[in-house]
């Protein structure tokens, strides 16, 4: 098997795996799709983009960065209020 064919085959496997991950997260109903803040779903989409980008470095980099920024936003949604609340309490208390 030539390296080119092997590469395409591997890309196909990756796309299939990413699609399976996305499908699993959607179908299992583990997430609230309307809000879309399931990290595994984001990873699945990133994986799909990376597999389809055919090793174009710029696309890979920016897709990665976009995923990081989005997940940071998601994390902030859940955790930032704790940090802010802590500082507010600290200011009030001390």
């Amino acid at each position: 098997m030539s390296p080119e064919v092997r590469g395409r085959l591997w890309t196909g496997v990756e796309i299939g795996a990413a699609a399976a991950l996305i499908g699993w997260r959607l179908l299992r109903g583990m997430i609230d799709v309307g809000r879309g803040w399931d990290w595994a779903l984001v990873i699945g989409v990133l994986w799909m983009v990376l597999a389809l980008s055919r090793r174009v470095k710029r696309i890979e980099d920016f897709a990665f960065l976009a995923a990081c920024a989005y997940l940071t936003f998601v994390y902030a949604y859940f955790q930032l209020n704790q940090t802010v609340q802590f500082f507010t309490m600290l200011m009030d208390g001390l």
Partner: protein
Amino acid sequence: MPFIFGLLLTLLANAGISLAAFGIYRMSRGGDRGEDLLWYGIVRWALMAGVVILLGSVQALRWWSLGAVAVLGGLVVAAIWRVEVASVVRAPWELLERVRAWWRAADLKSRTAATGAAALALLLAGRIAFAVWFFAPYAGDETCFQLPRLASWIQTGSLTHPHLEDVRSGYPAGFELLEVWWVAFLHHDVLIEMAGVEFLLYAGAAAYVLGRRLGLARAQGLLAALLFCGLPVVNSQSTSCCNSIAMTALALAGFAFTMGTGSVWRDSALIAAVSLLGLSFSPLFLCLVPAFVVIAAFRRRRPAAPSPVHLGRIATLLLVAAVGLFWYGRNAYDFGNPVYPFGDWSPFSARANYTMAPRLDSTDLVSTPLEALRLNASTMMNTYLYDAYVPYSHQATRQSGWGWYGMALGLPALLLVLRWRIFPVSFSGGVVAAGAILFTALQPELWNMRHAGWLAVLPCLAIPVVLFRLESIPRRAFAYLLMIALTLNIVGTLVVDGIEPEAMRRSMAASWNTRSGWAFMPPEPLTSAEPVCAIGIHYPVYTLYGPDFGRRVVLMRFGTIEETERAMRAAGARALVVGDLRPRERSALVRRLQERVFVVVNQRILRLREAP
């Protein structure tokens, strides 16, 4: 004893025992600097624990005996290996010189990156110093059943087994053996958290060595170490007297040893040593051993010269084994079951005992290991990774404690690194398999992730790899994101467990020698230093001892109420502190209250009416 005198003795004894450990290490080191560094940590802790076990077993665990052994051991090594001792003393200065030389040769970009990393490391050090100095042990399992063992040793000078109602006091107390070295000389617990800080540093070193084994450059390895130490779960455990930090640090060392560069026999010996020592901190370490073996067996190994059989190495391994298995031998002697409080030899057949035994009901247990795995994995992935709406906690309650970058930046980075095949499949797969085995052995509780802090090493290793491979603009953006995330992690762990500012103020305002865990809890129920008896579970009995271990506390198991009264009279105690009791015990106590043998002082304290 004046504080400064106690502090000097503490430092002197720790230096002495470290030097003595250096002598043993010198006989058994291999030649690879990274592995040798990790090996030294194992030898040092095994020796420290061994000395405490030995002195405690002959009822001579006093500050002077501990100090004498440490200083004598250090002097012997100093006399035998003068040159090496000089090199140990010189090592920090040589490191400083190398840093200076690097700084002079580095370009502006590297200097800026190094300054940022150093600033974050200083912030981390500041947080640790703050927690060590201003917070006394106050939380959960530590004050209920772990630290009472240490307090009892310090008071009696003997390695007694306090008969706590809480069967978890039968778990290995290897971590408390090391805490003795920070407590015995001051006869005070103000520096007790330093034992955990040692393990935090070790975890950082292990992350660095592991990174280097996986092909990371030095700068990447250092960043991975900083990131791992900055994780809320790891960072907060280091200053909370929680033995999970020891398991985390040794787990990373074990993974580093699996990627070792020595011969099969040497790598196997290192893995055996780290596993044996790990077992002295937690039986859960057993879950990691199959993964160590699998990774070591399946990785591609470069041909290495066979290590000659060396008596020094075998003797050192035997020392580690003796220390690691000590608690299991003690349990076999005390309870007739080496794996007490397991029901029997098999961890899975009596898994209920593992984490739930102290509970008085057992209705919420899962029935099979696979069900435990499914629930633990799904709660981690669906809930805990977000650390949603909870303050960081050393017990990782309802969270993973991976913080701002563990999930948000680390998981995408891990995907890239796995696609690039930077880490061997056997390694990544082995770490995940170790997590899966651990999850089969844990009850799906709210705080199960505290045992799995080492899992976050994968994202922490992946982030530096990706950072150094990104193009210029994305790299800068990612670096800023990372620095903000790391800062928020460290700041977020300034105060863990959602402590109220009022409690913080109480603790900080107290003089160091009166600072106690009661600052974070309801007011201390006792006003005088009178002796006290304690029964029941889920009560922070450690705090009854006082920060200087000044109050005599008799820990007892509830047999019958009459036995309890007899034990109180024998101990000369009239106050009885009551934790959670079983219904039968509670009704017996109520009966004696109605008969006016006891009077109620407050919710937790009863007083025996007649003079003992």
